[in-house]
């Protein structure tokens, strides 16, 4: 049960980071914190029922989250290389 609370806290922290951190790198980091919380929630569910299915789901989830992180970081780097921008503050839609 403790880990259920830990998972909830991690989700709240990750969300807070994603919403308030302006730097892109830190947003990606916060997303991974958030992901850890979500997967832990699956773990709690699995542990309650002694059920391997949610564990399998988490493995799938971790792989997908890694792919997303890699993709996001490449985008961040390319954006930085081209424009030097480190945030996604609004400026491009009011052309």
């Amino acid at each position: 049960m403790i880990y259920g609370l830990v998972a909830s806290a991690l989700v709240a922290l990750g969300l807070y980071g994603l919403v308030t951190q302006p730097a892109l790198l830190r947003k990606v980091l916060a997303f991974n914190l958030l992901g850890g919380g979500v997967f832990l929630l699956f773990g709690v569910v699995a542990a309650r029922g002694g059920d391997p299915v949610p564990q399998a789901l988490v493995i799938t989830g971790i792989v997908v989250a890694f792919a997303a992180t890699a993709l996001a970081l490449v985008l961040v780097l390319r954006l930085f290389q081209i424009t030097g921008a480190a945030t996604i503050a609004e400026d491009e839609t009011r052309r």
Partner: protein
Amino acid sequence: MEATPGGFLLVLILVAPVTGLLIGFAQGGRAAERIALWAAPLGVTMAMVLLAGVLHAQAPIVAFVGGWAPPLGLALRADGLAAAMLMTTAVIIAAITLFARADYTTLPGAPEARAPLAFWCFLLALWAALNAAFLGGDLFNLFVALEMLTFGALALACLDGRATQFKAELRYLLFALIGSVFYLLGTALLYGAYGTLDILLLSRTARSDAPTIVAASLMTVGLLGKMALFPLHLWLPAAHAGAPPAASALLSGLVVKASYVLLLRLWFWVMPAALLLAVAPILALLGAAAILFGSLVALRQARLKLLVAYSTVAQIGYLFLMFPLVAGSAAEVAERAWTGGALQAISHAFAKAAMFLAAGVIARGMGHDRIAGLHGAARVAPLSVLAFGLAGLSLMGIPPSGGFTAKWLLLQSALYAGQWWWALVIVAGGLLTGGYVFRVLSAAMRAPSPDFMPAAPVDARQERVALGLAIISVVLGLLPLAAFGLVLIGR
């Protein structure tokens, strides 16, 4: 529910584009292009056979993957809604394939280039992902499908490699990821509460308790974020307007619909009716705000592609008006509203794809997409302007178009259900849509200045593809309504 005959077709529809993508990626750009060209007619044929099968059986076609029945295994289900969406997808993808040949062809013997390889592979990839999203019968399987969709959409949208695209796509990716996480949280809670994620099994057991409520709100909001329903649309205009035309057509026309179908499955299958009744007015209210805000902002856009993108923001709103009209209404009214909502999704897919393709051709011919400077566009790209106008008719809801039938059904069910305020929104949205479509057309029809020169020649085949899609969006309105009874099968 048992597995039914014909289930292999579902697997094929899913696996064929995946296999094509894998082989195309391994063999390089020209192979990918040829695979996509072959896959287009094959896909349309498979979708047609499936549609005919569902119509013939008047019941969903179901497959259990690996022979494992839920809750242990995964089910694929093609009900009427799924069959209709698969058909729409197949036709639009085939059209985009034809359209894109002019832009992304690799000549024999030429070295492989980045954009063509990525385009053809991700066209197949998005197709596979869309099929998976429409057929999936398991909430986690659908999560994987949504992720495939996000990655594919992202890659297609920044195909031109411009800095503005990267920024727009980062906004999209990060927001979509929050959406995914919310959705995933919901599935964790649902699994904890019910021990299954199969949509049909859940629909028989779901309760109105705390885990279900939290799961429902998280999953709903996650999907709304992925659909860019107002006020969660921050990423859509720049992302859809910045992509190459063939990609924009796909993103605006189809990709957002996958989350929509999933949302329908969540609310009209999984969740108990009591919860739906509480949420439906809120969703419709957001939809109404999307219609009004999106259209007003579209009216003020200086750029053609941004205008079309904001029109998507607005048109997505219509999809949500059906929630309070289906929930808690008499069977006949609910059927009408359901048909209207589904038809709106389909006709918007065709109309918006046509519009983006046409806008792309116009922008290339004119060398820019500033609306104020479009004078002479009707001379440079006459069929594209015509396609834009026809698609605009469907978006406005002028008869005899698919958009008209959809809005008429929604309007009628709103009045039947005694919720006339939604009818006002529908009509006001139509007026505003008329306003922004007219802005574009009147500029495009004006004679250019005498020294005007087109920036680039226009490909007549691309124009015809855009026109063809626009015509489909109009002709949908000429079909007898009974044809749309399809989307009621398995509801």
